């Protein structure tokens, strides 16, 4: 390997940029897919087919939705504070995207004697950074509600102010419990602390904190059952009633990015991040490199199964685009199998094995992430919305004492040396 290639591969900038790309892939590129996923999941839970007309499994519907949003008329209501009205969606979106900066996508890997990690910024106050930045989102929501000059928006903004601030306390206190358990604020050290057996995961270390964290997360992202901020059956669309076109799109995307951050953070705090339980016991000294061909084989199998399904004559009658989709899937499957074969040939080349282990870790994290993203959708179509007084009662009379109790309990356990 030439000198310049080595210096590029060991540069921290390279990996920061790649981590940024990773974050954008999961959010901005992923959003059309998530909207499709949400609609399809909702439909299937309600026992109807959902969007399935355009493209394979209705996937092109997502692009149609995005284009529709982009070309709509952008209306600013009369009497609105134009400056605030314009800046509010930007705050929501920027804040949601910024939190991705400290997410560690993989563990440390050795490349030519240097240690690199797929992470944009390794801040030593990582979790505090996420809490600090994501709590700014409430400004965007409240400003949107206030600046729209609309009663429903105002109500939504007010609710947002009260709800997001209330649940932030419980969220922060639950995270304090996890900081006690891991003894660090760095996210990558938190994940490293969950290596080993399944019972090293935060979920088993502090189940109470997990419970509080999950509930507070749903409230923070304004998802059902805590979607009082937009509550479409009560106050039209809440804070974004007066938004249209891409400004509405920014709120919409902001919500999904926020969900994505929350899902990733749940995995990192409670579900072992990129770790596979008992990896070292089961797969030897370099478990993630060993797992690489299996991950690739699983990816290829998934792609081939989907390709087979979309190219069945029964489906082909609907669109010819299915054939293109199937061809792309087969190509991806081929690429995955090729990589697996390459690993079989070059597994003793240190840098190649290290890269493979990184890919495996990212894949593990993404699979866990997708589950928690799906949980958001699943819960949405399961639990009805809270009433406002119930929401406040839960936040202040249940979650807050429980979180304080959790901190006390965790502190005692940590001091006693049980955690």
């Amino acid at each position, binding site marked *: 390997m030439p000198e310049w290639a080595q210096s590029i591969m060991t540069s921290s900038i390279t990996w920061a940029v790649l981590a940024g790309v990773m974050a954008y892939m999961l959010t901005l590129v992923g959003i059309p897919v998530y909207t499709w996923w949400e609609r399809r999941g909702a439909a*299937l*839970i309600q026992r109807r087919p959902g969007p399935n007309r355009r493209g394979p499994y209705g996937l092109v519907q997502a692009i149609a939705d995005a284009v529709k949003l982009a070309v709509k008329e952008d209306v600013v209501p009369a009497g609105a504070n134009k400056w605030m009205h314009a800046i509010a969606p930007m705050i929501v979106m920027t804040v949601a995207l910024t939190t991705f900066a400290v997410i560690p996508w993989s563990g440390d890997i050795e490349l030519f004697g240097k240690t690199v990690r797929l992470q944009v910024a390794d801040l030593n106050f990582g979790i505090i950074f996420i809490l600090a930045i994501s709590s700014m989102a409430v400004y965007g929501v409240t400003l949107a509600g206030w600046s729209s000059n609309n009663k429903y928006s105002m109500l939504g903004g007010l609710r947002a102010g009260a709800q997001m601030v209330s649940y932030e306390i419980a969220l922060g206190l639950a995270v304090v419990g996890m900081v006690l358990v891991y003894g660090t604020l760095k996210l990558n050290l938190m994940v490293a602390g969950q290596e080993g057996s399944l019972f090293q995961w935060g979920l088993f270390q502090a189940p109470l904190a997990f*419970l509080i964290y999950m509930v507070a997360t749903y409230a923070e992202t304004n998802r059902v059952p805590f979607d009082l901020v937009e509550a479409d059956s009560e106050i039209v669309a809440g804070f974004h009633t007066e938004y249209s076109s891409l400004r509405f799109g920014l709120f919409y995307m902001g919500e999904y990015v926020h969900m994505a951050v929350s899902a990733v953070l749940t995995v990192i705090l409670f579900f072992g991040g990129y770790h596979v339980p008992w990896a070292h016991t089961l797969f030897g000294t370099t478990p993630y490199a060993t797992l690489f061909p299996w991950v690739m084989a699983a990816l290829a199998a998934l792609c081939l199964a989907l390709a087979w399904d979309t190219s069945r004559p029964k489906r082909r*009658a609907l669109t010819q685009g299915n054939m293109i989709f199937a061809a792309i899937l087969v190509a991806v499957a081929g690429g995955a199998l090729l990589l697996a074969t390459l690993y079989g040939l070059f597994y003793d080349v240190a840098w190649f094995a290290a890269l493979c282990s990184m890919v495996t870790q990212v894949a593990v994290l993404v699979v866990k992430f997708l589950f928690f993203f799906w949980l958001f959708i699943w819960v949405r179509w*399961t*639990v009805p919305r809270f009433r406002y007084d119930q929401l406040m009662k839960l936040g202040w009379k249940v979650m807050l004492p429980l979180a304080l109790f959790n901190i006390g309990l965790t502190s005692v356990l940590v001091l006693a040396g049980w955690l």
Partner: protein
Amino acid sequence: MGALREYFAAIGRTIVTLGDGLAVTFSYLLRKPTTIQYPDRTAQPVVAMLPERSRGMLENDVEHCTGCSMCAKQCPIDCIHITVVKDEETKTRSLTQFDIDAGKCMYCGLCVEACPIGCLRHSLEFEGAMYDINRLMLHFVTEPRVVAKPPKKGEEVQFAPRGSIVRKFLYEAGARPPSSGGAS
């Protein structure tokens, strides 16, 4: 102590019931959809599956129409327009216009009840999507024709098959024929 126990018991119940709810919705996810994919996944065309007494778009079998205008008088929104011209020489009355504005019709069925012959009736057709709403003005009389005589007592009138008339006019106006049921 009792209040504290109730507090933690409530949290426990929350977890259990939430799990129950999630299990129920997930089981629904795996079941077959109950809705039918409209229009091309149905076993037969939707029109063929409608009940006998469904009130679809109006049609008039002008071959048997006497031009009495009872229907037009009954219509609460005046969507039926009839013109009858009397020829002074031959002493015959001719029907020159029988238009139904299907875009306005509200399918109340009063005109059908008023029709003494039974030539005005509801078909089962309902797919009348057009690019221009004016095309939904259906002209049942294409060229002036002498009105029919009312049937004598006990005489059976043979009407054209139900729906065959309006369907022809709809396709001429530009409605898309329903995709063949049972395909795919």
